[in-house]
């Protein structure tokens, strides 16, 4: 299943929209999309997961990499609008407190 990606930049905040399943097949493409964003001048990166119905450990690994890149570059890295299935995977992996997770994009934009 194909994953579609696009991003929007506004006042130093890049929001990445992922549309599709975030599995072993999609992770390299998403990783390649995210990686350059950490080298740009933006101060925050928000990943909108509202159209991600499924995530596996390779997807989680990609987001953990993003988190590590954000730490090394001094940027904020936030996740928003996790579907119940995706949220459950984060819960099992006890990652909901590791990432900054927000219910809405508006919430995620606060304080970035």
């Amino acid at each position, binding site marked *: 299943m194909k994953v579609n990606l696009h991003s929007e930049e506004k006042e130093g905040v890049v929001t990445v929209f992922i549309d599709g399943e975030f*599995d*072993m*097949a999609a992770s390299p493409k998403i990783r390649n999309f995210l990686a350059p964003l950490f080298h740009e001048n933006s101060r925050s990166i928000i990943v909108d997961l509202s159209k991600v119905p499924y995530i*596996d*450990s390779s997807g989680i*690994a990609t987001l953990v990499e993003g988190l590590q890149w954000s730490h090394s570059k001094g940027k904020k890295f936030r996740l928003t609008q996790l579907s119940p299935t995706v949220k459950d995977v984060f819960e*099992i992996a006890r990652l909901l407190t590791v990432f900054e997770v927000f219910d809405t994009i508006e919430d995620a934009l606060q304080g970035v």
Partner: protein
Amino acid sequence: MAQSIKITIPSDPRYLCVNRKTLQQILTLFELPEELTGQLALCVDEACSNVIKYGYEGETHHTIEISYTIDNDVFEVNIRDYGKQCDTSTFQPRCLDDVKPGGLGTFFINKIMDSVSYCTQREKGTLLTMTKNLKPHMVDHKEKDDA
């Protein structure tokens, strides 16, 4: 569903979703909670991903044979590959406190499934068998619906 449903997919990550959808459709017939359906699909997916990564070392032209059975409310999945046999004792889930990319697949499998066994006593490849008792979840689901 004492009779098995079998599916064979290429060892190519692009086809993981085909297997996932098949399993989700099967589980839908049993009216399981969405959360459990997602978790079982995750475990099977992670196991198939491991076959591709470690058993077939990323080669995409091999096969993965998967069979599903639900008998007496016990879900069983068998995943057969013909790749490299790995030392299954090294399949250890990593500590969750150590936040780093990778290594979560085995953790998900061990956390969610009731039993996990790897059989390498064959000429080639591995047979992985995983089971999950669905009964407690079915009751819980029905009670929620009745409430």
